[in-house]
């Protein structure tokens, strides 16, 4: 994976490796903000997304077969993106560390929290993870 950079809270520039899956925020005016920007080598944080202008939240693999997920953002919807790290069977011969790339959206409908979360699993399977355990 290529390396990108970002300015940390300490004012210094830090390097960060690309990820197998990443997001692109596509805005209504046609501009876009990729998590990993190959144009200038910059890494962008999730909280840099301008939600007021967001039209499509896109998640795609960095390499491999083209497989693009798009969440069309209506007013009131918020995109979701996080990595779930699972360190399983610690200290045994079966120990392994797996990472799930989770994404989707959340909105409040009639005062009720509604969200849809998908997870790309290490074997490439995509699962629905609506009961993701995260706070509402």
């Amino acid at each position, binding site marked *: 994976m290529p390396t990108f950079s970002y300015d940390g809270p300490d004012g210094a520039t830090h390097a960060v490796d690309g990820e197998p899956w990443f997001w692109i925020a596509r805005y209504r005016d046609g501009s876009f903000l990729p998590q990993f920007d190959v144009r200038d080598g910059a890494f962008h944080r999730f909280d840099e997304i301008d939600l007021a202008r967001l039209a499509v939240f896109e998640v795609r693999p960095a390499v491999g077969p083209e497989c693009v997920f798009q969440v069309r953002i209506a007013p009131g919807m918020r995109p979701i*993106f*996080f990595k779930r790290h699972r*360190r*399983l069977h*610690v*200290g045994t011969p079966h120990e392994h560390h797996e990472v799930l790339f989770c994404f989707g959206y959340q909105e409040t409908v009639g005062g009720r929290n509604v969200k849809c979360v998908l997870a790309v699993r290490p074997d490439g399977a995509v699962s629905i993870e609506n009961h993701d355990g995260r706070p509402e």
Partner: protein
Amino acid sequence: MAATVEICESNGAGETVTHDIANSNMGAVDAAELDPVANPVTPGNNTYEKYQRFHVTAMGGSSAIDNLKVWRTGALGGAAVHVTNARETSYAQATYAIPVATDSTAATQTMPTSEPTGANLGVGGGLTGQLTAAGYSDYLVHQVQTDPGDTAGATTTMNYQYDETA
């Protein structure tokens, strides 16, 4: 976007912290990464408590680590129980104390045997707490309590999970 997160264990009166533990072996001594063969638990006795924490050593450009979950898998032998302070409701932050092999007063709930629905270990005393800079989660306290009729060789293995937001 790659925070560095390890599991650390605290032991002893002076709270010696062992970082990035390779295992969570439990036995008849208060030590990290102990040898369970050399330090077996006599049936009817307890293991020493474990005091462990998630430790973020670098945020790596990410903004938050949260939704911490722990659970066990494997077949405990006989009537042995694996108890913990981790819980999804009525959660309270544990404070470090010298680990003991008497019945734990901190670990009083059965360790889940599958992934909990929600977070069961907190940050800053709350299950919705987040680590946004290098630092530690609350203490995970756990202990195996055996029965005189238990047989040797039963296993329970630990699983640790967290979410990382860029």
